[in-house]
């Protein structure tokens, strides 16, 4: 896998088409008739209040949940019917780094490398690079059990970067990172998309979304209530000049 296949600039990378997902036999609608498209090379920021349906949407994209209705495609692959193909080009980082505590960091990275079929040379190169950037080199031979929350977050990020995925889906990736790691992560997100690859992430940090994202979607009560570039969002309301104000305005119902 990786970036060897040419990227089709025309076709959307992530297509969410009229997707609904409810819990508790339809009583709680987490995602309600959601449609959105993310294009190649785009950093898409996904915003919304707590419980709005961000994590549910992300879990639907990476195949952890099954939609009740609608389809989701990643590079044209239906995540339900062609799940393996869409997973092979996608990396996912959950909001809470729940990983194999009894493995060492390196064993975990090797496991991910094996599963994605990353060749040895690239594997070594990338592991060394990201461990260095995230300051994990000294801890990688130790069991993950001994890591702090932030270190676990960083080893999951390293694992997600190891296959050099074309699509990255990150759920609140900046939570728990120290300022240096957060800075590096933001840089690598930009770098990732400058190579024509795609990134979809959720966040609560308005400044990050405002500065980093090419486009932003705001979800509330499972519905997409606004979507577009920062300028497009600003044009929704003349008075609201910051994303924070737009967000508060739109979700204040």
């Amino acid at each position: 896998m990786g970036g060897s296949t040419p990227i089709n600039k025309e076709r959307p990378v992530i297509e969410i088409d009229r997707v609904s997902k409810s819990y508790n036999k339809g009583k709680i609608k987490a995602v309600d008739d959601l449609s959105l498209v993310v294009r190649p090379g785009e950093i898409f920021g996904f915003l919304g209040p707590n419980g709005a349906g961000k994590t549910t949407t992300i879990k639907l994209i990476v195949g952890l949940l099954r939609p009740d209705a609608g389809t989701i495609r990643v590079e044209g692959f239906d995540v339900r019917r062609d799940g393996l193909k869409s997973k092979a080009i996608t990396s996912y980082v959950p909001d809470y780094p729940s990983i194999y505590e009894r493995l060492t960091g390196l064993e975990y990275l090797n496991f991910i490398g094996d599963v994605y079929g990353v060749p040895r040379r690239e594997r070594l190169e990338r592991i060394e690079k990201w461990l260095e950037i995230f300051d994990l080199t000294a801890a990688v031979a130790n069991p993950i059990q001994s890591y702090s929350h932030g270190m676990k977050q960083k080893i999951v990020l390293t694992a997600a970067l190891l296959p050099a995925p074309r699509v990255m889906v990150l759920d609140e990736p900046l939570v728990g990172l120290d300022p240096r790691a957060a800075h590096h992560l933001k840089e690598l997100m930009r770098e990732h998309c400058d190579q024509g690859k795609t990134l979809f992430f959720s966040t609560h940090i308005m400044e990050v979304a405002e500065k980093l994202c090419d486009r932003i979607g705001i979800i509330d009560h499972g519905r997409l209530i606004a979507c577009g570039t920062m300028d497009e969002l600003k044009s929704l309301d003349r008075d609201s000049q910051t994303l924070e104000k737009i967000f508060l305005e739109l979700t204040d119902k």
Partner: protein
Amino acid sequence: MSRLGSLIRVGLKANFGLAVLRYRLLKEKKDRWLVPLVGLAVISVLPALYGYVLGIKFIYVVLQPLGQERAILTLGFLAGQFLILLFGLYYVISAFYFSKDLELLIPLPLKPYEVMASKFAVILVNEYLTVLAIVGPVLATYGVLANGGLAFWVNAVVVYLFLPVIPLAFVSVLVVAMMRLINFSRKKDALILVGSLVLIAGAFGLQLLIGKSQGRGSMESLAALIGSPNSLLNRIGAKFPPSIWASRALAGGWSAEGLIGLGIFLGTSLALFWILLVLAEKLFYRGLVGIGETSARRRVLSRVEMSRRVATGRHPIRAVFVREWRIMNRTPIFLLNGLLTVILFPAIFLLMAKTAGGRGDNAVMLRLLTGAADAVPVILAAAAFMIVSGSLNGTSSSTISREGAQFWMSKALPISPRDQVLAKFVHSYLIVVLGIVPSALVLGLALHMKAGRILPAAGLALLLGVVLTAIGIMIDLARPLLDWTNPQKAIKQNLNVLFAMAADIALMTVLGYGSVRALKAGLPGGTLLVLLAALLAALSVLSLVLLFRFADKRYAEIEV
């Protein structure tokens, strides 16, 4: 409600999951099919319970003319309290020191003794359930036969409620003191392993002791054992007098003897519990802090080392297998219930064989196994022994559950469910083989069974192992338990493990019964073995096909 009261209530609710069960049964209507299944399980236990009650009654009738009948109570209490002592160490270590909610409780404005008391209450309720099967029938049978009256039943309830306190408090004091004395923060896994091994060794020792003093395994000898003044029972009873006090409290009713017995029993229980709370106030948190953290040596890998350790690329199936193997063997509770069980079973058998010395029930089985008579029943019995050693552990039936909160990776990574389940199958089956090999060795080396019998038996066991492993994985796929915080729940308190064992035993019973009937009906033994092998081979293929199909379906359905 008082602070302590509400803490205990929350602890009980969180552990026995009544709210979750009620929610699942009544609101989500998910686990409804469990209700008839549990009912069926209860009904299937009834014959065994009936046999147990008959046994108690028999001993009562033998002992009553000698005026020794209350020894039954002592024996019942002793067995119950011994059981509590055995399980207690396990429960206590994991509840006091390794439950995840401690991280929530410690910062709250609670005193250490209050936290300890709430944990103690949870274990206490667990123990009530554990000893009910042993002590309940003894109390009921004795009460009815001795016509105990109100005094007996009231005292019986009080004694039952206090029964676990002394052994549990005893174990707790030991554990709390030990945790404080030695800094275990880096060796908690080793602690669980060593503790469990000491217990297992203790159980072995007791087995040896009973085996030696028992001689014949009949009811009469058991009665003689209890009745004689120098019996094992009295010796242990003398060393552990609470069971004698409890017996006096019950047999004496509300007479002076009974009330004194009850008083001493309750007084000792409360005193020990009080000592535990005082100790907890001083030592609990100091032994606790840092136990959740694992400090590790920071060793920077050199470039060469790093390069060596970065794998060349395993096939994904192998990668999943290696992950399963490592996590199973590095999690003490998984290791004890998997790998260790399969080695333990043949070892216990070996011990039984050595101590029985050619008499008693064990010897009957040994004669069957080694005897020069008809080869076919010997081969079948040997195969049964091998497969029981290899299969009656929770490896296959907890294989999905063990992933717990990490199951998201199995869903998100690009490996097909079939490949993942194949790796899990290979891992579980390897454990089966690891059980069959020592069993075959025990049969061959200790019981001198001929290779001509061991080999066909091993063949049958290996084939049946495929079927049983596939059944175990399918049961765990059907209802995986993924939301645990204490690994004990994934394997020891996982109903799937029980269901799988029940299914295994049912299938073995059907096969065994069918074989016996076929032999009696005059089917030549050799033909039976060939037919059985063919049947098992067909079942193996079928179960694997079903397993892979079911994996495709369930991996898509399980949401995390």
